[in-house]
Every structure is written in C-alpha cells, then in structure tokens.
C-alpha cells in the first residue's frame, strides 16, 4: 500500500470503531452515549469524504482525464452514506432504536463495500497514477483527516 493512500485506509478502520461505538450505544439503550458517538462518526466520515472529494479525486481526475469513471461512482456513494447518517440522526433524536438499527445496518454494508472497492481497486490506481505528486498530496490528506 502506497503512503499516499495509507492514511485513508487507516482512517477506514477508525470510522469502523466509531460506527461500532454508536451502534452498540443505541442497541444498549445508552442514548446519551449515542448522542456523543453519532456526531463523532458523522464528523469523521465527512472529513474522509471531503479529503477524497477535494484532494485525491480531483488530482486523479486531472491526471487521467477520467471524470465520469470510478471517482464519480465513489462520490455518488458518499451522497448515499450522507443520507443514511441523516436518517440515523433523525432516529436518534426520536430515540427510535429499530429505525436507527435499520439505517445503521444499511450504512455499514454500504460503507464496507465502498471501502473494499477503494482499498482493492481505486487506491492502488491512485497510487500508481499520482506517484509523482505523492509528496504534495499525502500531507494535505493527512491534515484533512486530522481535523476529526
């Protein structure tokens, strides 16, 4: 794994931890803990999405000329995950554990499938294509992820 995308890959694991904390808190009826855990997850995912959408993907698209390819699919999936986070937030506000669990379950699989495609396919493509720009892009990505 290239250093360029290593921080993003590592951040996937961090987001998994935050997801597990939020889901476990709701399943146990610990609503106060969940009210802390869900915004943490939301913030971490948002900074991850923005790191990709504002730094990695534009560099890849400009290097390859592919603006409607894999990065567009990833952006669409980010939108779907954002919508599910909103649904989870609504369920949390209403303390509706069943509704929260349904949205969380869906987010988890979407997120894991998305991460698998990024780690197995897109990140290696980015690492190859952007090898010459890694020294510039990598600190920017790390800085973006550190904000959560």
């Amino acid at each position, binding site marked *: 794994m290239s250093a360029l995308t290593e921080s993003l890959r590592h951040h996937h694991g961090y987001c*998994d*931890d935050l*997801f*597990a904390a939020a*889901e*476990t808190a709701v*399943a146990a009826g610990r609503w106060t803990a969940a009210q802390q855990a869900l915004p943490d997850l939301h913030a971490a995912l948002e900074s991850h999405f923005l790191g990709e959408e504002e730094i990695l993907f534009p560099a890849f698209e400009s290097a390859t000329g592919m603006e409607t*390819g*894999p990065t567009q*699919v*990833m952006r669409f*999936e980010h*939108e*779907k995950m954002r*919508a599910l986070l909103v*649904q989870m937030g609504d369920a949390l506000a209403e303390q509706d554990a*069943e*509704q929260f*669990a*349904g*949205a969380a*379950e*869906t987010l*988890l*699989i*979407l997120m*894991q*499938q998305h991460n*698998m*495609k990024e780690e*197995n*396919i*897109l990140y290696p493509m980015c690492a190859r294509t952007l090898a010459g720009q890694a020294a510039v892009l990598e600190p920017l990505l790390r800085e973006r992820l550190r904000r959560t």
Partner: protein
Amino acid sequence: MRPELSFEQAPPLDAPLRFFLAAPWFGAAAGALLSISGGEALASRWTPAALAATHLLVAGFMLQAMCGALLQFVPVATGGNVWRPRWVAACTHPVLIASASLLAAAFLSRHGALFAAAAYGFALALGCFGVVVGSALWRTPARGATLAALRIALTGLGATAALGIVLATGIAHQAGWPVQAVTDLHAAWGLGGWALILLAGVSFAVVPMFYLTPAYPAWLTRGLPVLALGLLLAWSARFAAADAAEAALFQIAGFGLGGLFAAATLRLQGRRRKSGDASLLFMRTAMLSLLALPAAALLFVALPELRPDPRAAVWLGVLALVGVFVSAINGMLYKIVPFLGWLHLKGLAGPRESVPTMRQIISERAMRGQFRLHLAALSMLLAAVWLPALARPAGLLFLLSCTWLGWNLSAAAGILRDFRNRIRANAGDRRS
C-alpha cells in the same frame, strides 16, 4: 469485452434477485418429498427419494443461490466485468430451474430420457454461465485471496457439472460407468471444490464486512483454497484405486479443512464489534455444523458398529447440506437481498427521498422466527436419520422453514416493487 474494472455497485437488481427468489422453493420441494416418502428415504444415500432430495438441495437451492451470488459478488468484490448480467440471468436461470426439476424427477422415476434432458440442460446453462463469469474472473486486473478462491470455486463447479453430466448421460444410455466411485468424486468436487471454496471465498470478504470483525488471517485465505484444490486433485488421481481406508482418510482431511475454516470464522465472529442479528445466528449454525463434520466422520470410522451403516453417510450429508450450506446461504440472503433492494431504490429515488432501510425490507422479527424453525428442522432431520418415524415431521418442518424463507424474500421483492412504482409515479407527477 474489455478487461476493465467494474465500478458499478452491482448488476441490475433483477439479475441476481431472480435466482435468490427461486432458491427456497427447491428446499421446500425437498422437504415436501421427504414428508411424503417418510423414513425409508433416509435409509441410505442411494434411495431414489434421497438422491432426488439431495439434488433439489444442491442443484436447486444451493446452485440457484450461488449463481445469483456470483453475478452480484464478482463485480463488487473483484472488479470483474460480467458481460450483460441481465441477459445471462434471463437465459440461464429458466434452464437451471428446468434442469434441476428434471433431475429430481429422473431420480424418482429412473427414466433415462429425463436424466439425458437434465444433463443437456445443465451443460448448456452452466456452460454459458461459466464462460461469462469465468471470463470476468480471469480478465480482471485485480488480485487477492477472494479472487483466487472464486476462480478455484468456478473450476470446482465445472468439474462437478462435468462429472454429473457423465453420470446422468451414462445412466440415460446405460453405459457401464463405475457409478458409485464417480458419484463419490462428483460429490467431493461439488461440496469441497465448488460449495465450500465459494462459501470460504465469499466469507473472506463479507464476514468482516457484515459483522465488523478483524480480517481472516492471510495464511488461511491464501492456503485454504489451494489446499482444498490439491486434495481434490490427489483424490481424483486415486479414487479408482483407493481402498476404503484411503477414501476415509481423504474424506476426513477434506472435512478437516472445512473445520479449520469454521473454527477461524467462529473465532472472528467472537471478536466482532457489531451487535448480533438473525443472519449471524444462521452463520454460526453453519460454522458449528462445519466444525462438527470432521468430528462426526472420525467417530463413524472409529465405531465398528457404525462403519458399515449406510445411515452414517446420510447423517453427514444432512449435516453438510442443511446444517452448513442451507444455513449459510439463508443467513447471507438476509443481508444481501435487503441491501441490494435498498441500493436499487436509492438509485431510483431523488437525493432527498427516503426509501425503506434494510430492516424495513425484511424485519428482524421475521428473520429470527424463520431461524428458529430452521434450527428445529435441522435438529429433527439429523434425528430422523436414526429414528425413521421422525422423517415425515422433519420433512414438514423443513418445508415450512423454506416456505417462510421464500415468503420473506418474496415479500421483500413486493416492497421493492411498490416503492419503485411510487417513486416512478412521483417522478411522473413532478414532470406533468
């Protein structure tokens, strides 16, 4: 077809879904057959009813679910570009349904023409399916343990189908094949080379994903499919000459590999960070059954009074087919169908339109209820091998469990259809 990476989430929903929706009804047919035939069906693996029920499960339930899963899984997990999945599904799916039904009828009626028709149907449908999926698997530039396992599994399917076609056409044309030896080889490739390796390859990717567990150890994901393939090739070279002791050794080694995979999966699931659900209960049942197989096989070899009893092989067969594969497939369908449904609706709906979540597509309560029935059916089927009076109620319970699964999946498809129509009607209203 270019060897490009597929970044689309999945093929159109109806391509895998038609396979998933059909699968449970073959299980229901197997249960109905047992409830009609009674205890005699389980007296040996060679009774017409046992052969028909076995093939309703393996060439019906399991093959349907696994072909559907491959169409869905290959693009997502390996980036493989499956050529026209909707068209491939539309062509192969009806032929596979007809072939599995004909095969079960052939075993019950011993009619040569039915065996021949089933064999040609499988050759046509699996030939077409294998070329398309194989091409995607071998042309993708991606790498990894799941991809290697899927390639071996597809090779296993090819070997199983070829041996099955040889057997069926041999019976149809009354050729003098050594039927028992070739059948053992056919079963070994089917259960070990195709079903187990596919289950392992898919699990390597989805167990960490569905249950938030750590990844499987690399030595297992790299080693298990290759070891299983090596064992099957060694057995294929020896099967004609091997004596009973050597055959038992190969069988226990094969079950041992399955047990290793089961132990690793149970260990990972024990370290999961996600709350449990019905799908996890099914997967745990599958893995405990897989873990019990080598122990039971060893016990049957060690006990002289059981060694010659034909019911020992039937008991192992029930544990493998219903305990391992039906349980695992059932559990995975409860994740895959609601997720694909949600993805499909989300793709149709506008960004602000809400669509049902996975648990609104199939409720946790319905899944847990069916799990309890499945567990009761499995327990009674295992007991019925030794207590023939239980065969009819066991068959009935399995029929009910598969019907409930079929109902849950069909109801999910109904919810998807209703929402799709509503989304399209709303879009029409906005335009007019």
